[in-house]
């Protein structure tokens, strides 16, 4: 017959609860809390800047109608470039070592940054089309000049980051791809021949492609975080 000291058992139990409590206090309770805090810390300034310049661009396009198709695409080109820069921050400022050894690591930080940026881009695009008075031809034209090349160029540039760890190089790739897409659209007069339905398909397709390639890149990075093997 084993003699169990019930008092000691109870004390152990209390100590365990205390330890659990300490650990629960130490870490973020939810994922959303982590993402939210990370986003505010990392993107606050970018977002304020983006919103303010967006306001300026919208006012300009409303005042000078003929500028719309220059201003708005230009805004998205620049915004996309800044977003790329965000994704390369660790290389730029050599913060990678600190990032890799933290909970966030390369994989998660890439994923969160991409999610935040894409959600933000969607909001901006949504607002553009809500605020600007456009007929259906203009609507198609603007979609083809902004969303479509943005997704394609970002997707290609982000895929190249692992190979070319150089901000200048990535920026050039991004601009060149964006430029090529826009030239192609004009060369084939896509904005004239395409119908609204087809246009939405094209944009939706490029969006899905973008998401899938981001997920693949995330997986690749996550594996490279457990750097061994």
């Amino acid at each position, binding site marked *: 017959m084993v003699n169990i000291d019930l008092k000691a058992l109870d004390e152990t139990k209390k100590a365990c609860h205390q330890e659990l409590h300490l650990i629960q206090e130490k*870490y973020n309770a939810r994922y959303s809390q*982590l993402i939210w805090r990370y986003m505010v*810390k*990392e993107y606050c300034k970018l977002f304020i800047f983006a919103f303010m310049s967006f306001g300026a661009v919208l006012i300009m396009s409303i005042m000078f109608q003929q500028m719309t198709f220059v201003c708005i695409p230009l805004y998205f080109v620049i915004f996309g470039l800044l977003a790329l820069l965000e994704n390369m*921050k660790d290389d730029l*400022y050599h913060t990678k070592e*600190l990032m890799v050894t933290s909970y966030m690591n390369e994989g998660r930080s890439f994923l969160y940054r991409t999610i935040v940026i894409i959600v933000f881009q969607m909001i901006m695009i949504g607002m553009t089309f809500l605020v600007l008075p456009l007929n259906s031809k203009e609507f198609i034209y603007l979609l083809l000049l902004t969303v479509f090349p943005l997704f394609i160029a970002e997707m290609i540039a982000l895929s190249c980051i692992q190979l070319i760890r150089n901000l200048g190089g990535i920026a050039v790739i991004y601009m060149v791809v964006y430029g090529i897409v826009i030239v192609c659209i004009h060369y084939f007069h896509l904005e004239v021949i395409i119908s609204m339905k087809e246009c939405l398909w094209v944009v939706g397709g490029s969006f899905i492609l973008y998401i899938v390639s981001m997920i693949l890149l995330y997986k690749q990075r996550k594996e490279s*975080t*457990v750097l*061994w093997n």
Partner: protein
Amino acid sequence: MELVLENINKKYNDCYAVKNVNVSLKTGVHALLGANGSGKTTLMKMICGILKGEGEVHFDDIDLKNEYDNYASHLGYMPQHFGYYPHYTVKEFLEYMCIIKNLSPQYSQKRIETLVKQLNLEDKMNTKMKKLSGGMLKRVGIIQALLNEPDILILDEPTAGLDPKERIIFRNLIASLSSTAIILLSTHIVSDIETIADDILIMKEGEIIMHDNYDELLKVVEGKVWELELPTQEGLAIMAQKRVVKSHNRHQSIHMRIVSDQKPHILAQLVNPDLDDLYLYYFEEEPNDETFDH
């Protein structure tokens, strides 16, 4: 608690930076001592999972490769040189580090306050990172590594650039942690580790050539350290032949401390060795004897 490294190897273009390292580290302070380029940083990066290489690392039952998230939650790492966003203030930087370490806001705030107080950085909290001096930056690096109360603390040259007062504060801080964490620190400043290290790992060309406590290590050079005072001319000749730890010019003579297997001069006196002597014994080749034969 135990951190085990098994068969760690790392090659850079056919040249080993870390070679065949097998060590097991228990709670306490372990100092990694070695010349420039002996592979200290490389080994530390491998322990932190930053560099790929051959071999196994595990902390108790947690394997670095398979459970990196769990492993990293026990880890605090201070790189030899670390990057930061230059526009951040010290406070913002530390908060950022807490966020990416997934620490809760209440816990982070308390922890930052305590550590900043301990390392005397309270008045620098609102200074931009890029405006900090080298020593202050080191201290921010140390705080950053301690934020999550790590069980494994890896510090790559933490004391380089600290002034004597800060070095003492750092030593006391490390000593206070030594009973609850596995601390591995690399340094060139021998006096830093004499007092606090439980054991010392000496690294040469990627290999750990010795791993023992301070007293045991010194036994290697016991009976090999000499002090001697000679007239300048004769003294200079001896200095060219032997490994000299220290020398000091007086009026017409030179006082020197020499590490040598044989008695270097008839007047030489045996003295007690210290870590500097040991370091020199391993890392400096004896000058060629034949050139200066009398």
